[in-house]
């Protein structure tokens, strides 16, 4: 009995303290808001927002609701985070492996990159890429076409738009290819386990993913045409490109700085992971006659990933949260659109900030859950 009491009392005190602190803040906020005649409520979410946003993945203008504006911001945050995570991972893995390269030049260059980019504050890098790039990029009328169809200008990157006919058939052909690849892989694994024979799965997969969509063009009636951006004059010295898709420079600068910054940390995780696998493993694998490619794929990477994944998860979370610095360079993310403009127009500070916090929390936890699931999947299966 005594023993139990000793266990419970500190817990109770902690819970009580937490409840009291929260209670005090809630009560205080309530009293103050009442005194100043501020209403509390989420009803504003359905009101008309009456402000426009520069860049949106879903249809939106000022006649939509504040909730729609919230979705616009959220999707823009997710967009920049996903692109950032993909680029940072690819770059991070390459640089991490390069740091272990026996080639002096590659090795030192990778080390220099890591030390340079991770030691400069991120906000500064964002400003640098935005304002330095803005000043360096040409005006639309002076831009040289890349491959004849891409235009990188101060007002954004203009790329041709795809115009599909029978897009659904093309889409089905890709799904069919993916299913075929999964089936062939399973079959190849069985064949190898039973007969020790190896089927060139990789080559077959590549072939399938090209041939099936190609067939959809030849016999499925799929047609693809491009809409190339064309220069349009607004005034004597002011031009834009019309048609095609335009990516705002804010998105490009933000993605670039976030990925370059986060890639340095991922590179270090990768390097640590590879170095964490015992040297004996590599030598043992080589001694049983595996090729260097097989050594990396079958022996080193499965063990290294276990070390790499947990700290890399942190970096993904950091990147997502750092994307809120977008407000500094006018990229309309959640913070700029919702916790910025919407907060200003409605004055609902507590409501909007709490929704924004909760959203970032949900985003971070989702990434965590996904990465933990992956980590568990690649962990040693105790038999």
């Amino acid at each position, binding site marked *: 009995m005594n023993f139990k009491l000793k266990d419970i009392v500190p817990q109770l005190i902690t819970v009580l303290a937490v409840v009291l602190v929260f209670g005090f803040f809630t009560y205080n906020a309530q009293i*103050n*808001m009442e*005194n*100043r*005649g*501020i*209403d509390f409520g989420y009803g504003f979410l359905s009101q008309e927002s*009456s*402000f*426009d*946003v*520069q860049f949106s993945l879903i249809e939106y*203008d*000022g006649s939509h609701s504040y909730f729609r504006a919230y979705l616009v911001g959220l999707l823009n945050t997710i967009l920049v985070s996903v692109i950032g995570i993909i680029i940072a991972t690819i770059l991070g893995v390459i640089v991490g492996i390069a740091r272990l390269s026996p080639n002096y030049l590659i090795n030192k260059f990778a080390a220099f990159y890591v030390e340079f980019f991770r030691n400069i504050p991120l906000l500064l890098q964002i400003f640098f890429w935005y*304002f330095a790039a*803005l*000043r360096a990029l040409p*005006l639309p009328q002076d831009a040289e076409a890349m491959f004849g169809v891409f235009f990188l200008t*101060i*007002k954004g990157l203009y790329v041709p738009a795809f115009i599909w006919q029978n897009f659904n058939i093309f889409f089905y052909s890709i799904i069919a290819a993916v299913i075929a690849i999964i089936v062939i892989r399973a079959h190849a694994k069985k064949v190898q386990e039973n007969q020790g024979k190896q089927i060139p799965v990789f080559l077959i997969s590549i072939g399938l993913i090209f041939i099936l969509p190609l067939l959809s063009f030849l016999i499925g009636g799929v047609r693809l045409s491009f809409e190339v951006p064309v220069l*349009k004059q*607004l*005034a*004597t*010295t*002011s031009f*834009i490109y*019309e048609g095609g898709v335009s990516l*705002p*420079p*804010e998105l490009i600068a933000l993605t670039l700085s976030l990925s370059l910054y986060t890639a340095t940390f991922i590179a270090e995780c990768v390097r640590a992971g590879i170095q964490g696998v015992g040297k004996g493993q590599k030598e043992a694998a080589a001694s049983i006659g595996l090729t260097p490619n097989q050594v990396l794929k079958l022996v080193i990477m499965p063990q290294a990933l276990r070390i790499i994944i947990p700290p890399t998860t942190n970096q993904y979370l950091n990147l997502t949260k750092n994307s809120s610095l977008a*407000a*500094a*360079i*006018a990229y*309309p993310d959640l913070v*700029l659109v919702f916790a*910025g*403009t919407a*907060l*200003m*127009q*409605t*004055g609902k*500070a507590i409501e909007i900030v709490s929704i924004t916090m909760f959203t970032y929390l949900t985003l971070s936890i989702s990434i965590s859950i996904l990465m933990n699931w992956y980590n568990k999947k690649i962990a040693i299966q105790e038999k």
Partner: protein
Amino acid sequence: MFKYLKQLTSLVAMVAVLFTFTTESMAAKKSKTLKNTQKKGFVRCGVSQGLPGFSNADAAGNWTGVDVDVCRAVAAAVLGDANKVKFTPLSAKERFTALTSGEIDILSRNTTWTLSRDADIGLTFVGVNFYDGQGFMVRKSSGITSTSQFKDGISACTNIGTTTELNMRDFFNSKGISYEPVAFEKADEVVAAYDAGRCDTYTTDKSGLAAQRTKMKNPDEHIVLPETISKEPLGPVVRQGDAVWEDIVRWSLNTMIEAEEYGITSANADMMKTSDNPAIKRLVGAEGELGAAFGLDNDWSLRIIKQVGNYGESYKRNIADTGILPDRGPNQLWTKGGILYVPPAR
């Protein structure tokens, strides 16, 4: 027995009502904000992060501008010294939260008076110290001389968290022009992006355009278009719920404007004490008991005029002489063709 009880209850109720009335009127005299300000010894004033002519800090950290002068006037009235002000630079996004949360006591930050701000979010606007309207700035080389030359696809740089964003939408929608809004959090970044060529036009209040133009790499390359697309009455704001403090700020501003109307300046204020005009004598504290209503002494208005000057002096010093807007436009006294008209101090 029951009857007595009823009488007793009504008696208690009457006493309670009387009691509340008396305590309330006493509390009114003792404004909480006023008391706190006098205890601290300085006025806490929220200003912009740097808008020449309105609120701008020099290299030594001295704030100047017509918005700054409103806070200085309050400090002169309440504390006797126009320099006893603590300025807090705020972004457009932060400003109202800073005021409602009690971090500052006056928000004097080129803030537009609108219905929803006044009614909704716990704020009270006390007056107008600058009548403004939203306009557009373009590069001279673009050949645009009027907003009627705007075409589909134009990109417009501006600040977030301002009425500008809303007016811009109304304007382009009514003209049926599609546009790209590029909204930054800080004014410096808006200017930098527009100057670099990111946007075809920069839109904000015309006074702001005139002021920011002076910050450009080459101001002569830019012009402000003649059209005004909105009404932007800018003025100081206080927290809702402190009526006395509200009155002090309102009448500090009104004193400056009325002083100009009667020709009282920082130089001649003392001599005006012997004026024949009772309105002038009231303003310089030589007649009447105007300060008593706020719980202030009788020289409060004299101190404002002597230390800060009248509205005309403040305008000349901050906006006209700095070349931002030499012409006073609507911000001229009603007696001289403008719309500055304040209730009489009596």
